[in-house]
Structures are given as structure tokens and as C-alpha cells.
């Protein structure tokens, strides 16, 4: 199984997408997800690391779209990840990402994760456009970051929002 085929997607759909500015994606947490059961026996929760990954996917697509998916956008640094409470099955969590800075080298993002009116986490991330930063290192020509799994999410959002209008 290649990386292109592996399902590694931790957001379900975008509910807001303002190019170069902000995006919000939601994730419905289901008891049927295997990984919820791995951390504590009989106490299923979403691992914090996967909440960071959900934010990275929401923000990464926002950063990628800002340059028409021409850059290979890599999560370079988690500047801050503060968790206020656990997330349990049956909840819908929302990842809101805002671009704070964006230039040819990369982007910095401020994000919040909420469940209803509760603040679940605050996460700051930094992304690198790797072809611009790691001079001398060679990466595959094709954009291995933005596989169809990710671009389809944005396509779906655009189709759904145009239908509503």
C-alpha cells in the first residue's frame, strides 16, 4: 500500500474556507474508530496527537490552497498545543485555523479546537514550503503532500457551498 492510497485523514468536512485567511473543518468522533480504544482501557478518548494532526490537516490545506497547491507544505513545528479537556466518542469537534503569516518560505497558523461552546485546545503551527527551504535536498517532483484525499475535501466544500447559494 503506498502513501497515496493509505487513508490518513482526520477531518470529515470543511464548514468554512476563506482563501489565504481562515478555514474551519469538523470531525465527528465515533466509538467505531479503533484508535480511540488504544490509550486507556474502557475509557475511549481522541489522542491529543491526532487532534494536532486534525488541525495540521485543516491548516495545511488552507496554506496549500493559498499557493494553488504548487508548494509541498510540510508541518515543520508545533509552536504550542494547550489542551483544556478530553474529547470523547459522540462529539463533533471543530478545527478553526487562521493564517497569521504567509510568505514564500512557509506560514504560521493560530488554531482553536472546539466542541460545541467548549474550548478543547489551542494549537499554533508552522508550515514550511520545503522546496524553498531545504536547499540541496531533492524531493520528488510530484506533490506528494496534497493527495486526492485532501483536495477532494475542498472540492466537496466548494460544491456544497455553491449548491446552497
Amino acid at each position, binding site marked *: 500500500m503506498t502513501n497515496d492510497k493509505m487513508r490518513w485523514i482526520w477531518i470529515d468536512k470543511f464548514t468554512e474556507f476563506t482563501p489565504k485567511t481562515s478555514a474551519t473543518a469538523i470531525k465527528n468522533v465515533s466509538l467505531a474508530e479503533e484508535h480511540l480504544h488504544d490509550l486507556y482501557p474502557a475509557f475511549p478518548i481522541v489522542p491529543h496527537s491526532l487532534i494536532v494532526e486534525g488541525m495540521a490537516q485543516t491548516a495545511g490545506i488552507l496554506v496549500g490552497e493559498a499557493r494553488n497547491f504548487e508548494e509541498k507544505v510540510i508541518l*515543520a*513545528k508545533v*509552536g504550542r498545543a494547550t489542551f483544556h479537556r478530553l474529547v470523547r466518542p459522540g462529539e463533533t469537534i471543530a478545527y478553526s485555523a487562521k493564517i*497569521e*503569516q504567509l*510568505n*514564500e*518560505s*512557509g506560514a*504560521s497558523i493560530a488554531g482553536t479546537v472546539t466542541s460545541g461552546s467548549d474550548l478543547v485546545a489551542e494549537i499554533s503551527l*508552522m508550515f*514550511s514550503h520545503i522546496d*524553498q*527551504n*531545504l*536547499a*540541496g535536498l531533492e524531493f520528488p517532483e510530484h506533490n506528494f503532500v496534497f493527495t486526492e484525499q485532501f483536495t477532494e475535501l475542498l472540492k466537496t466544500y466548494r460544491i456544497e457551498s455553491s449548491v446552497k447559494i
Partner: protein
Amino acid sequence: MTISREEIYDKVRAVLVDALGVDEGDVTPQAVVRDDLGAESIDFLDISFRLEKAFGIKIGKGEMMPENVATDPNFVQNGKITPAGIAELKKRMPHSDFSVFEKDPTVENMSKLFTVDAIVNYIEGKLKTA
């Protein structure tokens, strides 16, 4: 309102503490950002973003630390920066102190040009022209 050199230094120190997870006491004016504070390549983008935010400025690519001198065959011979290369670096890094580097101007030693003091000088210059 102008900002004093001490205030710039304090903000730069806070940026480096946040970006690199070092102790305040480690951030001395002479500290070399890579060698003494442990910055890796990706940290420089982070530092640049944080400085932009802290001082409300824009930092162009390669402005604080030129990226293409070390890979230019006109400026590098046998792992050492040539006199022409040093002249080019001095032109592009007026904020850096070259006294240590010039004694042994290897490509490896280029990192020694990027000290905490160099960042403070750079920001001071940038704010003056803003």
C-alpha cells in the same frame, strides 16, 4: 515612539526563548544562534516569523542570513569562503561581526555570523529605516 536597544534585546530574547525552548540566561549577546542555542534549519523560519510579529516588520528571504553565498562557486573554494565571498557577506550582513569568522572563514563557520547581537543589530537597522 522609538524603541531602545535594550527593549529590542528583551523582545529578541523572548522570541528565541519561545522558538528554541532555551533558558533566558542562555541568550547572551554573543550566543551563536545555531551552535550555542541549538537552532536547526527550520527554526530560522520560525524565528523570522516571530520577529516579524514582535516588531511589526517584514523580513525578506535571506535578508538576515543570505542563503546562496555558500553555494555559489565564485564565493567558495575548498570549503572556504573567498575574499570576494566575504566582501559579499559583509555587504549583505552589515549587522554581523566578522572578526571571529574572518580568522577561519570556512562554510561551516558561517553560522558564527548569526549571533543574538546580529539579530538585535538587524532589527535596530530595520526599525530605523521603517
